[in-house]
């Protein structure tokens, strides 16, 4: 079924839907990971976005039951060069198309995705519409223009789970049974990826709380540490979370990832800005300025902490992106607070930075002893 992709700047790309008819809109972004489409599709940080894969063959290994990062598909739309209807992998139990159809996500193949990617690189991320229902380019471009922008928008409330839950091999409603883990962690769900919870679970009893939970409520639980998760959109759109975090800083060890890191930056008095086309992929080199070593990291962010806007007496730059020298990690010089812009929980992506979870455990340990 023929589909058109219209960008807000008037550019049109043609393709074929492989998931039936429909029309959707969102910010169009590209991801350069060659593997991990299932994790990407289910990553809540992609709320409000249409994802283009730069690797041209997608669907090769089908869909399995384990590699999910949230309860359902989160992307608004999906664009690939050649969809692979025949999959092969010992864990696969359905095709990608079937999965997308079940989740009602409009997906298009046959697109010159490299041209689309180059366009976004040169012109910056932009809003777009995909449709099989309306094939009039002029109308579609107008729709693209009228699509709400991500800037200043609160997408977190669309992805945060409305009720608290515990994590044990998956979300569970009941309090965590024995055996007790060394630490008790509260994770603020701004659109958390399951793999973060899986990694925290190794050493922690994890209680996941909705994004709007108050600082008082969190502190009343007396956790050993607080985790600020990844999530979609503009950190400036979630002032209420920034406010909460401001009240938590200094009280308990805090670790933030991605949106959580940006919120830390804002709560510490800094600013954030939108990157031209963002970092989305599994090959981004980040230098750990404390060790001097380079980590290959998974990334997915369109906004970034402006390190210069922070009080450098109080906050230290710990990680630097080697491609564009943007801020990838900060820590407070005196308080138990640190965060990274990228995804040490990977999934998809390399495991180079999983040591950050150990750092969080260490920090909690230190504080527990001191406390």
């Amino acid at each position, binding site marked *: 079924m023929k589909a058109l992709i219209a960008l807000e700047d008037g550019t049109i790309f043609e393709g074929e839907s492989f998931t039936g008819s429909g029309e959707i809109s969102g910010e169009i972004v590209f991801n350069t*990971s060659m593997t991990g489409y*299932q994790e990407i599709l289910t990553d809540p940080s992609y709320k409000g976005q249409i994802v283009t894969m730069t*690797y041209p063959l997608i669907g090769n290994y089908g869909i399995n039951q384990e*590699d999910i990062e949230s309860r359902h598909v989160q992307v608004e739309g999906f664009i690939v*060069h050649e969809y692979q209807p025949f999959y092969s992998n010992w864990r696969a139990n359905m095709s990608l198309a079937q999965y997308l159809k079940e989740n009602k996500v409009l997906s298009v193949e046959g697109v010159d995705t490299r041209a689309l990617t180059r366009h976004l690189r040169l012109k910056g991320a932009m809003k777009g519409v995909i449709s099989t229902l309306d094939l009039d380019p002029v109308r579609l471009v107008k729709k693209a223009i009228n699509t709400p922008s991500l800037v200043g928008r609160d997408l977190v409330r669309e992805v945060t789970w409305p009720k608290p839950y515990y994590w044990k091999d998956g979300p569970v409603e009941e309090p965590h049974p024995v055996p007790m883990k060394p630490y008790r962690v509260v994770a603020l769900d701004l659109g958390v990826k399951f793999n973060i919870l899986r990694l925290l679970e190794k050493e922690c009893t994890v209680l996941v709380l909705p994004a709007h939970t108050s600082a008082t409520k969190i502190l009343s639980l007396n956790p050993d540490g607080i985790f600020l998760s990844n999530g979609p959109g503009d950190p400036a759109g979630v002032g209420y979370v920034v406010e909460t975090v401001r009240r938590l800083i200094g009280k308990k060890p805090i670790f933030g990832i991605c949106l959580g890191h940006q919120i830390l930056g804002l709560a510490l008095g800094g600013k954030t800005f939108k990157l031209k086309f963002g970092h989305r992929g599994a*090959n981004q*080199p980040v230098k750990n300025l404390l060790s001097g070593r*380079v980590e290959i990291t998974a990334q997915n962010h369109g906004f970034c902490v402006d390190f210069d806007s922070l009080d450098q007496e109080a906050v230290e730059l710990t990680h630097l992106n080697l*491609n564009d020298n943007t801020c990838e990690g900060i820590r407070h010089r005196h308080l138990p607070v640190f965060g990274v812009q990228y995804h040490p929980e990977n999934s998809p992506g390399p495991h180079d930075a999983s040591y950050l979870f150990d750092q969080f455990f260490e920090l909690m340990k230190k504080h527990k002893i001191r406390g």
Partner: protein
Amino acid sequence: MPRRNDLQKILIIGSGPIIIGQACEFDYSGTQACKALCEEGFEVVLVNSNPATIMTDPEMADRTYLEPITPEVVAKVIEKERPDALLPTLGGQTALNTAVKVAEKGVLEDFGVEMIGASPQVIYKAEDRELFRAAMQNIGLRVPKSGIARDLAQARQIAQEIGFPLIIRPSFTLGGTGGGVAYSRMDLDLLVAQGLDRSLIREVMLEESVIGWKEYELEVMRDKKDNVVIICSIENFDPMGIHTGDSITVAPAQTLTDKEYQLMRDAAMAIIREIGVETGGSNIQFAVNPENGEMVVIEMNPRVSRSSALASKVTGFPIAKIAAKLAVGYYLDELPNDITKETRASFEPTIDYCVVKIPRWTFEKFPDTEDLITTSMKSVGEVMAIGRTFKEALQKGLRSLEIGCFGLDTGWLNDVLPSREEIEKNLLTPNSKRIFYLGAAFKAGFKCQEIYALTKIDPWFLQQVKQVIDLEQEIAGQKPLPLERLKKAKKYGFSDRQLSTLTKKAEEEIRDERKSAGLHPVYKLVDTCAAEFEAYTPYYYSTYEVEDEVRVDPTNKKKVVILGSGPNRIGQGIEFDYCCVHASLALREEGYTSIMVNSNPETVSTDYDISDRLYFEPLTLEDVLHIVEKEKPLGVIVQFGGQTPLNLTVPLHKVGVPILGTSPDSVDRAEDRKRFQVLLKKLGLSQPPNGTAVNLKEAIQVAQQIGYPVMVRPSYVLGGRAMRIIYDAADLKTYITSAVLVSGEHPVLIDKFLEDAIEVDVDAISDGKTIVIGGIMEHIEEAGIHSGDSACVLPPHTLKPEVCAQIKESTRALAKELGVIGLMNIQYAVKNERIYVLEVNPRASRTIPFISKATGIPLAKLATKVMLGKSLKEMGLTSEKEITHMAIKESVFPFDRFPGVDILLGPEMKSTGEVMGIDASFGLAFAKSQLAAGQMLPAAGNVLLSVRDHDKPALCTVAEKFHQMGFDILATRGTAAFLNQKGIPAKIILKVSEGRPHVVDCIKNGDIQMVVNTSLGKRRTQDSYLIRRACVEYHLPYATTIASAYAMAQGIAAIRHNQLTVKTIQEYTS
């Protein structure tokens, strides 16, 4: 850490001659390393015996030793040069093994040389099976279980530990023969007994069977700060059980989820750390059980490899260059990514296309060996193709092979499909044509599941093949071809030629239809980053998409396209790539934009910084025309890439593409038999008497007329090349009736064979006015042995000056008459001081790099400039360069890879590579050439002589010489009788058919140090064949012609009297 300033001088070891398993990828990596280290201001010393490499060009290193790569010679170089460091990881297994032996001799310690990149300990740990297994256990990884058995009882015990099925491999057999898979105790007993018998050391290895598992490779890099990155993942189309060099491989991995890929990545990082490779690249192979994802480690190469060359071309990331820089201290994040400029080398390339590598075999050259693909590599070359779909890349790759298939084109139409049995057999037993049988299987209605059961090729790949076949069937049944289907076909990689066969239209018609519909390919960039950053290196591939990225400057009129030589094969290898690289460099020196087209990932010519633009494309008319139409160059250079571009000359010329240099008509005059005869007659030159025949009767008549022996060859070849020397009518009858297809359209060509003539190769350069002889090379072996296979010496050592003068004169006359602009090669035969012209090729020959190295004259570069209109006079070359040293080219053969093949030489070329020996005298130069080719000439001991009657008189001098040097002579009955009669003492030794202990027993027992065996024709006598085969299996130096035996005797005499010394090529030619 920046550059290490405690090092000044670094020694690099190259990989020597091109052999199966070690081809020009190591020239690519070595060249990059030399450039990288020179760029950093190090003094680079290089040892490599292969003159056809770019790395041995005098400008590439400060001091270049074109000397044999043996521990002794390398030790001499170290003693002379006193380098601070030795970098052994860029010259393949040869460099690694040699470096380890040099270290073991204590030479490095004695002269304070540090081994950088990988230490001997690292190399042992990676290569010793037991050490490697223990290392893997340390980090919680598994290798397939295995054990060594020397008798049946041991084998049974090991089998119990491993469990069935298991693989039995005899140690030290040729080409991995004699092994098998045991599914039961009974199989085990049988195979072990067989294996012990076949093994040269009565030993078999038993190994857990992972045959049929999925095979993967990762290319890993590490720096001194322990930063590790994965450059590329590769998935083998063919499962475990087939050598990766013989597998179709695909990049990136296609059927792993991210979870599985990351586990493999973690394992690779743990392995490079555990083995301890401090800096540089490594290649790690894994097998994955398709049923449950279980992963085992197969092996690790602690050096750059064939796969790292492929990974470099796949991603654009220059692994060898970066490895060299890491070895001298740099960290990955200190090095720029050349392609994007603004980002660093410390990242992992991501690609937005699919790459397929396909091996190229030459079984047709060895009809006595079975077309079987196993764990021992047999292919001599490979192609790589890039597409936006797997199907496109696969089909582009298949037509790049230049084997007469223009895609997944089985040549089998529906009505003539092979039988089900034949298909099944060819799917079950891997062979060079299996990919085409996959196509046939789908056409014959096989189900994917059935094919999987037979091949264990992952169903994902099978489905891709099926999609191609399905579309082919749709197209074949339809006329006219609708535009949408044509578009789809192009996206699936179908060539116009394939479509023309399917629709029964001419290729031009398809082309015109396509053009009028505006359907043409676009070019996309290989940029390491999937378009995330701007790329500055113009490295392109074609595909059928929307956006074209190629930056063609239409106002630039100074653009020249060079057509490369495609996949390496016997007869067309690195020598032609060397010429193409020189052409590109010369164009750039002259201010022209050089545009390279090639499909061979192993080469220097496909390095992104050799040319101004690189098109990684098949060398077919369609693909080349697209580039020409896009670029609109001043002209195309076809004379450097061997037969591949030459075959395109006429079709390109026909459609109006300007050809630079010698005109296509001149090429035709030299190639067309009739026109060539007229040409020679006009110049008063002779050629051996000859004729053509369209049937047996005529053939016998022609042969009788010109007299036996005759050289015969078909004008049209089915499978084999089938050129042969025939001694009588009976032989001719067999040949005509069984070996070739002869018809009115395809006559057989018959030439008088000049027995005992000396063959001479001449290379010359001409600008149309001035003609300069590059060099006259006298062959060691007599005429009748392919010029690519015989050793040759420059300058001629036995030809009289008058003969040489006559040769030069004829060469000039031919160049002038043909209007040669550029290079020309002529083969002559000299008999009784009379000169016969055998062949004229108005193009670069295989010997150009050899002459250039021996004389210091860069003939290919000069020829390129001549084609651009410069005169030789302007460039200061007006006369031949006389050299005072001797340079010998010796050929290297793949006989040990092909069980059952006779090692006799003939008119069919069989060698894969060459070495050069250079020294002051013939004897020393020849001895070096033998050493470099792996023939360890003995200084004393027993020499076996066994020759045909015809050669007996000539044998006397040889035997005399060995006798004088103190060798004991053993000879078979006839030869011994003859020698004794001539007063040369020779002891009789029994032939195999004469009882035991026979000659092969003596060889096995180490009682013979060298063998001279000549024989008439092919495998005429089993006895003589068994002697020759034993030489290969026991690595004895041997000669199969009297001429080469005599040369070897001279070489032995030289090394008995003189110590071998080493000298740089810069000193020889300055």
